[in-house]
């Protein structure tokens, strides 16, 4: 073959430089103009697809929720709360095969290692813990769980001794609020006298077990013997420390005669012990289904019907954030909502979604979703 040493230089061609510049500019402008005009012309920023003929969930969060329940990654527990498969489940499964002796002892909760495991469940677990939609679903579950238990206390001091209530749950501090979750049920409103406002547990932490709640009353000065007080307590049978129980009367939702096993509340008459610096009441929280009129299901997108868990599409009017008690929105305890087109988003996602680092990769072995404030370029 004849050697051809040079690239083709095509000398003497016509000058097309300025033409090229003009053409490139026109093409760029034309393409962008079309795109922008289309966006401005649309009635909403995101085009709506044609309505689905079936009623299968279309939104990613609803799909993820339904599939995770089918796949056993979300389980409804006896106390009404939803248990979420732990973030390190993939690691636990890997260790159960390779190093069974390096698994931490199991609690009484659900056995996540039992049952079938396949690539679909693996993918779902990944999505549940390491995607924006999964984060939203878990927030909703947390909000749902935080309302599945009830405990509250109300008191009056016959001796006029004031005091402030605090509460904790296995050491985790609980927020108390005076606001009733919904209109007073009749049996709660039939009190007369100078009763102090209710102290409701506003939100329940995501503890896996269910220890008793500890209410603590601290008066400004040590109590004197003979000073009396009365309590009304919503929850299981109370255990009182720091005062003598004079009378304990179980109260039921409706029946006039009330057996201890049916009780949802207790009315206590107490007498301070001399020099007592505080009063402690331990009682088990009540499952919210025992007092349906106080059950605030409407505040999350998750609903329980006939023992089944359903995801409510946000177009349902019930899911509005406006119905949240102001204290909960302000305290940041409840994932806030923000209207955006036809969907609602949690405020916390605004800055974090972009930076949500999917650390899991194929193994999904870590729970940490590292949030970087900004990217370096």
């Amino acid at each position: 073959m004849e050697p051809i040493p040079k690239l083709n230089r095509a000398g003497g061609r016509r000058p097309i430089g300025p033409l090229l510049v003009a053409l490139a500019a026109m093409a760029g402008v034309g393409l962008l103009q079309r795109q922008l005009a289309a966006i401005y012309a649309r009635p909403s920023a995101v085009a709506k697809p044609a309505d689905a003929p079936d009623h299968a969930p279309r939104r990613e969060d609803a799909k993820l929720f339904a599939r995770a329940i089918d796949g056993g990654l979300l389980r409804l527990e006896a106390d009404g709360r939803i248990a979420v498969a732990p973030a390190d489940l993939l690691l636990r499964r890997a260790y159960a095969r390779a190093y069974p002796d390096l698994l931490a002892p199991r609690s009484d909760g659900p056995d996540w290692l039992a049952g079938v495991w396949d690539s679909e469940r693996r993918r779902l677990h990944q999505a549940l813990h390491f995607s924006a939609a999964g984060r939203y679903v878990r927030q909703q579950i947390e909000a749902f769980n935080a309302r599945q238990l009830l405990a509250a206390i109300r008191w009056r001091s016959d001796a006029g001794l004031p005091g402030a209530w605090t509460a904790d749950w296995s050491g985790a501090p609980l927020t108390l609020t005076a606001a009733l979750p919904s209109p007073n049920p009749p049996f709660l409103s039939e009190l007369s006298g100078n009763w102090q406002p209710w102290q409701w547990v506003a939100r329940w932490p995501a503890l896996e077990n269910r220890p008793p709640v500890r209410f603590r009353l601290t008066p400004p000065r040590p109590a004197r013997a003979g000073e009396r007080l009365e309590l009304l307590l919503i929850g299981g049978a109370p255990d009182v420390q720091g005062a003598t129980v004079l009378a304990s009367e179980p109260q039921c939702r409706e029946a006039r005669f009330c057996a201890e096993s049916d009780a949802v509340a207790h009315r206590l008459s107490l007498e301070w012990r001399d020099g007592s610096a505080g009063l402690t009441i331990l009682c088990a929280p009540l499952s919210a289904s025992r007092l349906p009129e106080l059950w605030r299901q409407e505040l999350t997108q998750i609903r329980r019907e006939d023992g089944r868990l359903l995801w409510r599409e946000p177009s349902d009017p019930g899911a509005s954030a406006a119905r949240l008690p102001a204290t909960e929105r302000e305290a940041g305890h409840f994932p806030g909502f923000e209207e955006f087109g036809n969907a609602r988003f949690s405020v916390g996602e605004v800055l974090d979604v972009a930076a949500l680092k999917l650390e899991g990769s194929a193994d999904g072995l870590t729970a940490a979703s590292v949030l970087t404030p900004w990217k370096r370029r």
Partner: protein
Amino acid sequence: MTRSSIPGPPLRERLAVTGDTWWLAIWLLPLLGMLWTAYRAPPWLEPRRLTVELEVGQSLALGREALWSPQADRDHVLLSRDATGAWRLRNLSPAKQVLWQPQSEREPRSVRLWPLVAGAGFAVGEQKFRVLAAQPRRLILENSGLRWEYDGAILRKQGRWLPECRADWRARWRARFGGWSASLAARRPLRLGGGVYCADRLGLTDVPVDTASIEPTAEGFALAPGAAGRGDGVPIITAVGTAEAQAIWERSVPLATGDRLIIGRVRYQVLQTAPQLELAVAARARRWLEGSAPEAASKVKITWARPAWWRPSDSSPVAVRLGILLLAVAAFSAVWAVLGRGRRSRPAIRWGWSALAFALAGACLEMQRNILAVPVLWPYLLAWLSLLVWSAAVRSLWSKGLMAVLTLLLGGGLMVLLQLGSGSVEAGWQRYGGGGAALAGAFGWLAWAAREAWRGLQPIPWPDERWVWWSLRALGAGALALLAAQALAGDEGGWAGFQPFELTKLVLVAAAAHALTLRGRARLHGWSYDKQAPWLRYLGPLLLLAAVCGFALWFLHDFSPLLLLLFWGLALAWAYVRAHPLAPWRWLGRLALIGLVVGLGFGLRGLYQQPEAIPLPFQADRLRAWAAPRDYPHAGYQLRRALEAIRAGGWGGTVWREPVNGQVMAVPVVESDFAPTFLLNRYGGLAGLVLAAIQAAFVALLAIIADRALRRPDADGLWPTLSGRFFYFSLSGGAALLAAHFLVSWGTNLGFLPVMGQPMSLLSAAGSHWVLFVLPIVALAIAVEEKNHDHPF
């Protein structure tokens, strides 16, 4: 461009005169825009000093409002004075931390850190631990009869080394690295919670993973809440079993003069603690619009100040130092110019210029490091001056054109970023525009220093081919090493403060240009197994390409770099076949490429209709969200916000009537990937069209300069052989990658491409992308074109 396109002397002179006027106008245009932005900036008042008065024994909860910290909780810290009058601070936020840096320490740490000492005990949930020993690199814990030892990297249970938690290549490499030398191994926190015992995780029954962590410190180890720990979640109790038992959330720290604090991303420094507590607000506080309704009175007194546009604020020693340096440089150059007129030799003048430029580059870099401490407009001014100097120095018509377009793009980008900062309610946003300007200025001045030094050193010959090739190999190896460092020690945001991926792109462009140049020199064209075909030499860029693709897929988990590379590959193939000496190759090659592009277009369309068709292990949601945005409100969140902001801006934009930025600031990464959204929202769709036109002209000018480099004869004695082709392929590749960046970024912002994560060149705040990729390409184009101009063929 052939000779006929360059006008003859009279016309050229005429063009030169009008050209200079035009050039000055173009240079002034963005400068005026920037000054207008500064002039129109809302009348912000920034909190400079907070003064808190408290009686002994009192406490006060402060949060978002009182601390002027937009990211803080409503009640974030509790300040109290104990019986001795000393101040203490406690973090009240259930999930966010407060960082505290005592004056004597170099790194800030959480106020919820509890140092572990031998004999101490703590509890996480119902699990109690006792510390048997706590020294640097040696921690021994005891829990329910089990003995745990941790050296800062790997946990031992009853003396047995535990395996790595994640069995991926990175962990294995780290483990091996740690095995070689314990002192080199990266220390990492031991995370408590979860269901597994492994190298850096101690599982606990009924405790969610990462509830607490044990951090290595200089003195030993300290207990802290983990990423999943919450004040209202599983309790973490320190000093358990003693009278001092306390939840870790309730820990407080003493405040002393000189201590630094970070609360909700705002930085403070304690100025004095008696008779009242005085905090200087160092950076990133929320601002208050002068004349608007005053904030509700709180127990905190605030000293207000206007933003420092030109004059440094009193609390900024960095700015004062820099100001002195700049004044000294200006005085030096004035004296040099006046005294040395006509007397000094040209090399001496060049060295003087070089030193001056070097000092200015240093000043720019110092500003970039302390961008929030220097007056807002200083870095912009230095960047502008470097643009002026460079624009005045270039002689070729095409370089002048390129400089003009660069000035408009860079100037426009900096103006937009200045507006991003000046219109933002939070003071810290100034760092994006200022940092970008400082880096661009540093690059301009460094290049100027190098140019003057180079010309002062002449006659040093043009580096020969071997030198160029060896430099390329060294650069390639360096780029791969940097990628490896990022993969091992960095994260997807970069390594050691910058993004090595940008440098790798530049090296890939050069290496591919080298290979294609060799291919062009090969005596045989077309496919051949002839020994003279230097196949082995093509392996370099292919290896680099494979590394880059692998890095993008396995480390970044992102396919957007692959789209850039695809675009680049197509453009490079086009550049190769269009210059091929054999006509069949030229025509068939181009036809094949057109066919391929059309096929890719159809493929993209098919993907839009059936996003499930590609089973991706990652970012599959991105494809689905692109195809059906309404069904993916979470995965498509950024795009929804961006489109909403773009629609709100309309063709005209909002900046003309409303100087405060507004809702567009809620778009995630609005300063970087979504900077075009900011532009479209604030300046409107028409400004977007003008920008697109300038971008197209920028790419076209690079392509033209590349074409001119190709048509230099080999043997005219002025250039080393082959350089023309090397420059042709380098500049073509660079232009293609820039075009791909523009296209992908518009596609990200307008939602017509299923990609994300790429900045828009010269608009997004992306310092590494500017100085490691865009500006070097422009510098190469100008150097080549100037050489071409000085030695016309």
